[in-house]
């Protein structure tokens, strides 16, 4: 019988802190990572919910632990972290409806960790806020964490919200690292309107149902094959995309960066299958959840390049470490070619010395060999193909700008960047255009009505290619994504400057041929 118990309030980092206890007992890299991460987030208080029935753990319990003679309990603890001192009085005021106390607690809330009653793998569903990004924002290279979403924790009539993406430690009875990476992936914001999130037990069952491995289902000690991961994605009503590396050594640098940039910007986490650069070169799967926007590349006049090809920092949910672990994208040479590897890197501590050693810095580099992504089934365009046609349909603009600028004797840089992603059609019209044309209401109205009235019906998700001069948007090219790649061509383009429309006409007059970009929508 589970007996009622009070919430306890414990100062973070003290002997009574459950993470300190776990570090003492296990010394696992996951616990050490979480202690360092929360320390650097400025955690000061832990509110311990003594009894919490966790959906994922209950599914694991039903699938495996319930029938063990060990007598595993079915109830977990949940730890809530705050970056300020929290007192019992403050909790009582908030629970009594005091709006100020509620706001203070919400503002200080850093997220929660479910503590499973499993001695070897106690860290269950974990959702933590990411670090503040003041420096990245100031430098124009903000963190992009599109797959993150809001989670709510309900405690004594209070609702605490945190923005992040769920992570958990692998427990080898019901799931493997690939199971946990898939589980995080299927939590993504992109699927908010789509489906219920499967538990790790459901993922393992779906994998074995689609492609039996020949071995027993539970305990799931054999891991998953890539084809099983694809079956899991299909079982969720989503479409799997698998993209292999350039050869057995993995991905060429620019290709890897532009691919993950396109997926992550679209809200789709990227499951990386790869090799740990340890002695055994063992296989390992992690889930990419974000990246730091790179600085704009320097581009030759008249040329066009992908904006994301220089991504150098990614954020990874790794079941060997923890959530949002920072990895640097590095190149290594093999047979005369440069391939990508991801090397763990701890950010500089911002709240004094770390309480324990940070396992990120001694972690083996990961060499990605395949990318697996779940996308909406209606989205039929391959992102790699969209990237290729993006350059094809954008290349004319810097070329003609360079020509006209030099003819009119204005020496100025004319190199442009192109960036592509997928976005729901309505979100493009509402949010994307609303943001780009925020201070130009007349142009915004013309563009929105033009898209609604002059463009043939568009697919639910559109391929969006933005061509920019420096940071300034020149035009957006929109692709219908509901047909096969062979027929992929622009359905419409939104022009932000009169001169861009003029340059397109100029190209036609000079080159003797027009550029087919679909319906032109005026946004100036």
């Amino acid at each position, binding site marked *: 019988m589970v007996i009622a118990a009070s919430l306890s309030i414990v100062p973070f980092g003290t002997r009574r802190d459950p993470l300190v206890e776990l570090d003492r007992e296990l010394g696992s890299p996951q616990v050490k990572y979480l202690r360092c991460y929360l320390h650097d987030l400025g955690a000061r208080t832990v509110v311990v919910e003594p009894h919490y029935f966790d959906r994922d753990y209950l599914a694991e319990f039903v699938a495996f632990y319930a029938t063990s003679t060990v007598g595993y309990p079915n109830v977990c603890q949940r730890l809530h972290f705050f970056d300020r001192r929290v007192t019992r009085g403050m909790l009582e005021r908030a629970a009594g409806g005091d709006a100020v106390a509620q706001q203070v607690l919400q503002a200080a809330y850093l997220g929660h960790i479910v503590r499973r009653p499993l001695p070897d793998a106690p860290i269950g569903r974990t959702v933590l806020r990411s670090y503040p990004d003041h420096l990245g924002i100031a430098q124009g290279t903000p963190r992009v964490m599109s797959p993150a979403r809001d989670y709510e924790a309900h405690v004594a009539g209070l609702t605490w919200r945190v923005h992040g993406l769920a992570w958990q430690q692998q427990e080898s009875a019901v799931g493997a690292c690939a199971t946990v990476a898939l589980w995080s992936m299927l939590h993504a914001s992109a699927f908010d309107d789509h489906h219920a999130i499967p538990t790790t037990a459901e993922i393992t069952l779906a994998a074995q149902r689609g492609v039996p491995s020949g071995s027993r289902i539970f305990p799931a000690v054999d891991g998953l094959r890539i084809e099983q991961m694809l079956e899991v994605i299909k079982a969720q009503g989503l479409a799997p995309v698998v993209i292999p590396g350039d050869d057995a050594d993995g991905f060429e640098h620019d290709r890897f960066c532009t691919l993950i940039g396109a997926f992550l910007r679209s809200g789709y986490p990227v499951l990386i299958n790869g090799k740990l650069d340890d002695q055994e070169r063992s296989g390992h799967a992690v889930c990419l959840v974000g990246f730091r926007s790179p600085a704009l590349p320097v581009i030759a006049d008249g040329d066009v390049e992908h904006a994301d090809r220089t991504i150098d920092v990614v954020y990874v949910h790794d079941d060997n470490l923890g959530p949002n672990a920072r990895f640097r994208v590095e190149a290594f040479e093999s047979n005369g070619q440069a391939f990508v590897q991801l090397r763990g890197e701890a950010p500089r501590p911002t709240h004094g010395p770390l309480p324990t050693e940070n396992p990120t810095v001694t972690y083996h580099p990961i060499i990605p060999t395949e990318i697996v992504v779940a996308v909406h089934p209606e989205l039929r365009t391959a992102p790699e193909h969209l990237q290729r046609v993006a350059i*094809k349909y954008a290349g004319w603009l810097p070329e003609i700008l360079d020509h006209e600028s030099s003819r009119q004797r204005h020496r100025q840089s004319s190199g442009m960047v192109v960036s592509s992603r997928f976005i729901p059609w309505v979100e493009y019209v509402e949010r994307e255009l609303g943001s780009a044309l925020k201070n130009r209401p007349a142009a915004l109205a013309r563009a929105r009505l033009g898209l609604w009235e002059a463009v043939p019906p568009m697919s639910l998700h559109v391929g969006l290619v933005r061509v920019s001069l420096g940071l300034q948007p020149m035009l957006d090219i929109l692709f219908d994504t509901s047909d096969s790649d062979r027929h992929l061509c622009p359905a419409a383009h939104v022009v932000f400057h009169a001169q861009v429309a003029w340059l397109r006409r100029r190209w036609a007059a000079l080159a003797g041929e027009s550029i087919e970009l679909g319906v032109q929508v005026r946004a100036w």
Partner: protein
Amino acid sequence: MKGAGVEMSSPEKVATVWTAEVATVPQLARLDMRAPLSGQRAFRRRAAALRRRLAQGVTSARVRVTTDTLRKLVR
């Protein structure tokens, strides 16, 4: 899917390719849109070269998924 996907932990708006607001661009503003056509022959050569270069990019070989890829085991 979220807008530009840029996490804003500060109220100020950071300009990136996906978040920049459209503004007057000096490079474009300096262009004389009534200028006569010139340099046609040179431009046609340039356009043809660009076409060839871009066509090559679009048709470049895709890396194929093989059975070996699909059977890779991840523990």
